[in-house]
């Protein structure tokens, strides 16, 4: 993290709105990726990002180390997404919604559906890591920082995530070959 970035986080923590808006510009995509990874739904993910940003602004004083600001943002988004996810599951019509969500896009191919269900079977963290990687093409280091993972843990996570997906989609992959 370079000094100017650090300074930006510090300013945001101290209530500098412009700095915070700058952070929104640079980080909201990553937050979206995380939220989408967990929720598999664009609208919900967008709401989650919005909520998370508001909450982050309101509770920014809790961050004492400016370096941890991005990770903290990601944590908020993850919890928020998690909450939404849980609520959705306890909601009586949740099944229908999921189904409708899954069926909704008209151009969705069989492969797409299979891919999404395979994604849904993954642990939350794995999904978030995958989306961060494939949405934003972040390098491992940045992803680790964002998700608050220790050095080198991501390689195992992504490896397992890919392997799991591969196994689930094996028939489809075989047909593609």
């Amino acid at each position, binding site marked *: 993290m370079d000094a100017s970035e650090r300074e930006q986080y510090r300013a945001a923590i101290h209530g500098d709105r412009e700095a915070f*808006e700058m952070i929104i510009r640079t980080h909201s*995509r990553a937050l979206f990726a995380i939220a989408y990874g967990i929720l598999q739904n664009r609208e919900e993910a967008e709401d989650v990002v919005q909520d998370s*940003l*508001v909450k982050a*602004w309101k509770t920014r004083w809790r961050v004492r180390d400016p370096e941890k600001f991005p990770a903290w943002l990601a944590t908020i988004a993850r919890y928020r997404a998690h909450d939404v996810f849980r609520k959705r599951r306890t909601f009586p019509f949740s099944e229908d919604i999921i189904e409708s969500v899954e069926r909704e896009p008209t151009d969705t191919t069989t492969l797409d559906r299979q891919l999404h269900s395979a994604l849904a079977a993954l642990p939350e963290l794995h999904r978030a890591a995958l989306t961060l990687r494939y*949405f934003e093409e972040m390098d*491992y280091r940045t992803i680790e920082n964002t998700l608050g993972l220790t050095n080198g843990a991501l390689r195992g996570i992504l490896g397992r995530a*890919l392997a799991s*997906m591969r196994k689930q989609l094996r028939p489809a992959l075989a047909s593609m070959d």
Partner: protein
Amino acid sequence: MATIHDEIDNWLAADLHGELSDEERSALHTHLVDCAACRKTHQENKLMNKILEDTLAQEKADPAFEQRMLAGFRQRIPQRSGLVKLLGDLMHFRPVQITAVAAILLVLVEVGRVITGENPALPRKRERYVENAQVPELPRPASVPAQAGGLAKSDELAAGRSKGERRIVTGSDIATAEQAAAKPAETPAPEVGNRKLIRNATVQLEIGSFDNAVQKITAFANEEHGYVATTSSEKQANGKLRGQVIVKVLPENLDRFLQKVRGLGELKNQTLGTEDVTKAYFDTDARLKNAHVMEQRLIDMLKTKTGKVADLLQVEKELSRVREEIEKMQGQLKYWDSQVQFATVTISLAEKDMEEPAAFLLKERAQLALYAPDVEKIYNDIKALASQRVQITNAQLNRDYSGHISARVSVLIAPEESDAVIARVKDFGRVENFQAQTERIAQGGSGMSENAKTRAKELRTLAEKQNGRVRSSSFSRDPDGREFANVILRVPMKNYNVLMQSLDSLGKVENVSVQRQDRPGAQIDEANAPADISIQVYRQGNIVSHESGLLATLRRTLAQSAGAIMWSLRMIGVAVAFLAPWVVAIVAAIWITKRVIHVRR
């Protein structure tokens, strides 16, 4: 160590994502060449990666996403301006929060102290009130003996006779003295331009209540960083206290202290003096230094031990003299230091109406001139009356040149005998002249107690009307203004009923009990048998007015409810002061627990 084959998934993913170092990549590719299974996995993974890239690329946020987020954020968190923003921002920081909480706690504690009246610097009124409740004023006995019908008799009812003297140096005062003594270390004595000034003041005050005044003086002394050195008081026969309080205060606070003390009562006398001991002080100081030098020189002399023994002895003597001087000077300097450090205020206190008498002595003097043919016989008869209760103090018989005989006898008679004796003396001859004179002598003070003994007097006249006489009477008054008079009358039986009826006219009879004592064997003259009547007259205190009726009840009720409200207010304050820290602590604990749980999740 795990081989590439074991962790092929991780290696392959990292390879696809371009996160392998050159070495790692070549190692992986070497392995892939050897291992067919891994090669197959690699192929599948590549395909998987491709699908993910293709599919998820569609799902990612659209280009306008950031703008939407920003707009949403701006809408939901409107820009605050000015002071509110500053305060809001400030409140987000831990040190500021801690300070705020501490301030709130402090305020609560202070409020609690105000309410419970712990703080000596707080309104004195309540404390005074408590004092009054706890230490009721000493009753001021004022008994008046009112005797009638004696030739010359004296009685004394001086309940307040006992002279109490007390000398207090209270423990708490000593403690404050120590606290106060610690102060001057920081605030040096007022040596104006290094001058040594001793300030003294004497104040003479007339106050309402001695104990109250002492309490207040102690409080004032504490406020001005001083202390009460000694208190002494003396109780007068009439129950009033007179005393002296010596207070030490910091000289710079002296004027303020005096101002406060003056407010306690009526100022009778005040002196304020300043003694400048600068010159004497520094003279002594210089002399002390010289003496020290001298002492050292003498010690040196002794050490070298040259010279004759007599000389050495002389030196020794000189040394002891010098040392004594040094000690004296040091003592003097110390004394001055202590005097300069604190100004001494001597406050003489005397309660109001100091001169009010404690008791009255009633003397009755009767002069009786008898004309008798045989003076000598009567003279002897009267002398024969002498007994323990009838003492002849002076008797003279004169015969003038023309043959007239006159005699003069002074008799001191006990009160209860006086009537009988006078009656007997009257029988000895023809009464020429009879004069009775009552004299009242105030005891333990001068002046008159102007308070109503009128009822007692009325009783006396009433009794006299009914041919009886007052045997004894006393009068006393409560501190709260209630007055009591006790009168014992003796009337002949036949007049008893008339007297009792007329008693009704004097006031409301509250309680009557009648007792008859017959002595067997004694000759009873029903009509003239003595009836002893003991009457207690009292008047309700004028401070607590004796009122009945709707208004009085209403007033009492209102006063009580006001008192109850004040009490409950106080209790609420105490409860808040006690509970608030707990509430804050519990809230903080809950918050921390929440945080911990939150972090764990």
